[in-house]
């Protein structure tokens, strides 16, 4: 495929695929943030099965 190499200069260096493939450094999470994330995760892991149970219950209950 023909293209003009100068075209690439329309992109900022950080936009190039090669640049975006370089991983960003890992961030250290504070204990408070970590606790909040874990709390929400536990909430989801409990809530979603409850909703699925309610769905199955609604299906099996004759109206």
């Amino acid at each position, binding site marked *: *495929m023909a293209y003009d190499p100068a*075209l690439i200069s329309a992109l900022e260096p950080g936009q190039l695929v090669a640049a975006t493939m370089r991983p960003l450094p890992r961030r250290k999470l504070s204990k408070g943030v970590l606790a909040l994330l874990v709390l929400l995760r536990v909430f989801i892991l409990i809530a979603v099965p409850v909703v699925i149970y*309610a769905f199955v219950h609604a299906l099996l209950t004759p109206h």
Partner: protein
Amino acid sequence: MSDSTMNFGYAKSSVVGAEELFTYEDVLRARDRLKVLKSRAAKSSLRLLWLLAGPGVLVMIGENDGPSMVSYATTGATYGIGFFVPFVLLTFLMAYVVQEMTVRLGVATHRGHSELIFQRFGPFWGYFAMADLLFGNLLTLVTEFIAIQAGGLYFGVPAWASVAIGVALVIGSLAFRRYATWERMLMGLAAFNLLFVPAALLAHPDGAQLTHALATWGPVPGGFTTAFLTLVLANVGATVTPWMIFFQQSAVVDKGLTRADLPQGRMDTAIGAVLAAVAAIATLVATAPLFAAKVDVSQFANGADFATALAPLIGSTGASLFALGILEAGLIAAMTISTSSSYSLAETMSAAETTSARHSLNLDFAHGRLFYGAAIVSTIFAAGVVLIPGAPLLVMTLTVNVIATLLMAPALLLLLLLANDTEIMGDLANGRLANLAGGTIVVAIALVGALYGVITAFPNLLSN
């Protein structure tokens, strides 16, 4: 040749610096950027906005999906024109505040939401965020095909035919292998979301009643009951959902927006919010005659039932426009939601370095097998579920809405954490005001999600 080298198959270039490689994806994005740079140089603000608009409009109109329009229709048919008109405007203001953060994240980091979570918070949270999204998206896709099927049935098209056409259009939209083409095509389709406006006009709404509702946030016929609360929660759930966060940030990156484009990115999001709010309020207004005629909509299964009930009240033209709007709502949401799954899966796998997966609508099929595969497989799966004979579509739609609302809390917390991350955001990190607004919305939506889940899963809890 390693996997990562194989992905950079086009050329080495000295244009952007020593030893930098660029790909075909870069070339296509650079072409789009060149047009933007020329417009900026020519100080052509309207053309610049036109070139840079897209992710915001698509995400907001995409969220006016099948189940959302049914929520607005139920609201209009149950409460008429009153409290919910200004309330819907408020929910779109909330959506703007949330989505604006994704624009800043995209232009500051040039990374999609999933890869940012994976890289900054590690694989544990990265995989969980992706799994939440893919699970929620897969279920939501089913409800979009329910809307497509319902819209088709109103016009006498068999369910299998509407679903098959829907699948063909969703998969066909990916065949362009070009972000810009995909985006413009969807924006054209998104315009049909405004079909609810002429449908509302055919309902001959009372202008004074609308003005009164906007000024007084009332009336609330029947008072503050559990049914009222459920509709409040459903309307919030119809406006802000996890896929929107992931989609807009990835689309902003795929489109190639930079810090200089932030004003247009914000404008794009605001225009999308206004258009979507207009369509939502129009849906509410169009179904208000059902409230006046005291039609019981509690057993309505989908948008087609509303269209059928509206025909004697607003005429067959209005009802047909309504049904066509429902069909369009499902179709455009199926396109955007399946693409958000593609972005998330490929971004996470790429960040995990388990594959050389890329994540762009500018990819060819050879380099985007995982990316395109995710959208195609999830679309076919969702369409298949809808066609199962006797599938409980109404209960499924309700359950899917609840699950999507529940999944919002962790998604919004991660968004807020990233928007406050000064190491990656620099001066675009959230300020005090943005945190106050964003934090309030995050807490409110998380509580709403939990409450909506409890009320829907245990409908008798509050009435006892």
